[in-house]
C-alpha cells in the first residue's frame, strides 16, 4: 500500500504468516507495521492475516513482543 516501486520489485515470494491465538496479546503492533496492510483486527480484537495480501516480509514477526507470529 505504501511500498515504493523498488520495494514491490523486491517483494518476496508469498509465504503468509500465521498468528498463534494462545500467544497473541492483541496489541496490534503487527497491524501497524505491516507494509501491505495485510493484517486487520477480526472478532474479539484478534488480528487476522489476509493471506492474499501478505508478502512474507516477516516485519510483523520482528516487532511482536509475544512471539505469536511465524511463517506458515
Amino acid at each position, binding site marked *: *500500500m*505504501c511500498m515504493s516501486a523498488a520495494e514491490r520489485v523486491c517483494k518476496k515470494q508469498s509465504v503468509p504468516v500465521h498468528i498463534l491465538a494462545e500467544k497473541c*496479546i*492483541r*496489541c*496490534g*503492533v503487527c*497491524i*501497524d*507495521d505491516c507494509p501491505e*496492510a495485510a493484517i*486487520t*483486527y*477480526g*472478532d*474479539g*480484537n484478534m488480528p*487476522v492475516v*489476509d493471506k*492474499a*495480501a501478505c508478502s512474507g516480509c516477516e516485519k510483523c514477526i*520482528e*516487532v*511482536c*513482543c*509475544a*512471539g505469536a507470529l511465524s511463517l506458515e
Partner: protein
Amino acid sequence: MAADYDVIVAGAGPAGLITAWKAAEKGLKVLLVEKKSNPAEAVRTTGNAFRNRSPINGEMVSVSKKDGAAVIHFHTSNFDVPYSGRLIDAYDRYSFSNSGYCMRTSRSACPQQYFYDMSVLQEGLLNKALGAGADILAGCLAVGAENEKNRVRLQIKRHGTQSVFSASRLIAADGLNSRLAECMGLNEQRPVMLRGPVLEMVYQGVEFPYPPGFAFILGSDMKGGDGFMFVYPHAAAENACAVMVNCRFPAAKCLDRIKHFTTKSKFASWFAHARHIHSTAAMVTVRPPMKKPVIGNVLFIGDAAAYGETLVAGAMFCGFHAADAVCRELAGDNGFEWYCDLWAANFDFVGNPQKQKDYTKILRLYGSLPDADLDFLFRLSQERGPIDMTGQEKGSNEYNGGNVMIDYFLGFSEVKGELRSRLQDMRNS
C-alpha cells in the same frame, strides 16, 4: 458531489475519541473509524496515569472525585472528561538502582499522579461520542487517503475488503506509527530517531512494599540486560501492578526481561504470589514532530504528529481543539491553520531542538550512568529521605525533570570528580 460526512476521525484513541465527541456535540456529521473490533479495549501500552497539577504542553490536568466517579479537568482548555473506573492516588514516585537503593519523591499535599483504567476511560469517551450522534466503523483499518477539492476520500480495509468514505475534512488520529502519515508523505522529512518495542504485563497480588507510586527500575541485574523498566499501580483490577519494559530488537526480548525481573531479580519476592492477568504492547518510534501537521483537508493530531508522544492528556488537548478546528474550517475560516499555531505554541518540542533534548534527558542521564554511579547517587538520596515535591514550582514534568534531578544530585557535596563533570555536561546538553 457532497461528502458522506462533515468529518471522519481515523483512530479511536484518546485524541480521536474527544474529537468525535466534541465534533458530534457541535452538530457535525461524524464518522469514527477504528481498527479494533472492540474499540474501547485498551491493548496498547501507555503510562495509564495523569500527572496531577504539573503543567505541561499548555495544559494542566487535575482530578476531582464525587459519588464514586471522577471528573478529569483540563484547566487551560476548559473542558472536563468523565471517568467512572478505579482511580489510584499516587503521592510518591520511586527510582531503584542496581543494589536496590531507593530514591523517592513525595507530594503530601496532593497526589503527583492518578492511575486510571484506560479501557474504562475509552469506553466512557466512546459512549459520549456515540451519544452525541457520531457513527462508528469498528474493525476497520484506515489504509490511505486522497485529498480532493474541498473534501477527502478515506480508504478503509476490513476483513480483506476495501471501501471508501468521503468527508469534508479528515482528522488523522491513528497514533505514533500513523499509517496515514506514512501514506500521505508526512514522514518524508521525519527520519526515525529511535525505535524499540515496549511490553507491559499486568499482575494481580503484587506485594509492592511502599505506598502506591510509579517506580523506575534502573539496575541492569534487575532486568537481566539493557532497556528501561517500570513498575506502577494498575487500575484494571484490585491490588494490581504493571511491569513495563522497553528494549532493543528482537521484540521477544521484552518478555525475557520481565520474566527475569519477576522471578530472578532482587525484587522477585514482590511477585511471589502474583498472577498475570493481561498484557499490552507498543512500538515506540521517535521522529521529529510535524511542524505543520496538515496536508490539504487532513489534520494530524496527537501522537500521529508528535515527537515521541503527546501523553494521554496532550492527546486529549489535541482532540478537543481539533473539533473546533473542523468547525472553523466548515464555517469558511482557516481552522487548520489556527490549529497549527496552537500546536506550535503549546507543544514545546515543536520546532525547538533544545526542548526535544530536554524531553528525553532523564532517560539519557540514567541510560548513560553505570550501575555503580546510580547506586552511589541513590544511596545518598535514600540516606537523606524522600524529596518533597510540594508546591508547583518543584513539580517536574517531562521537559524539566532531567535538569531537576541533575541539580538535586549536584547538591550532594559527596559527588565529586568525574561523576560531577558528567552530571554537569548532561545538565548543559
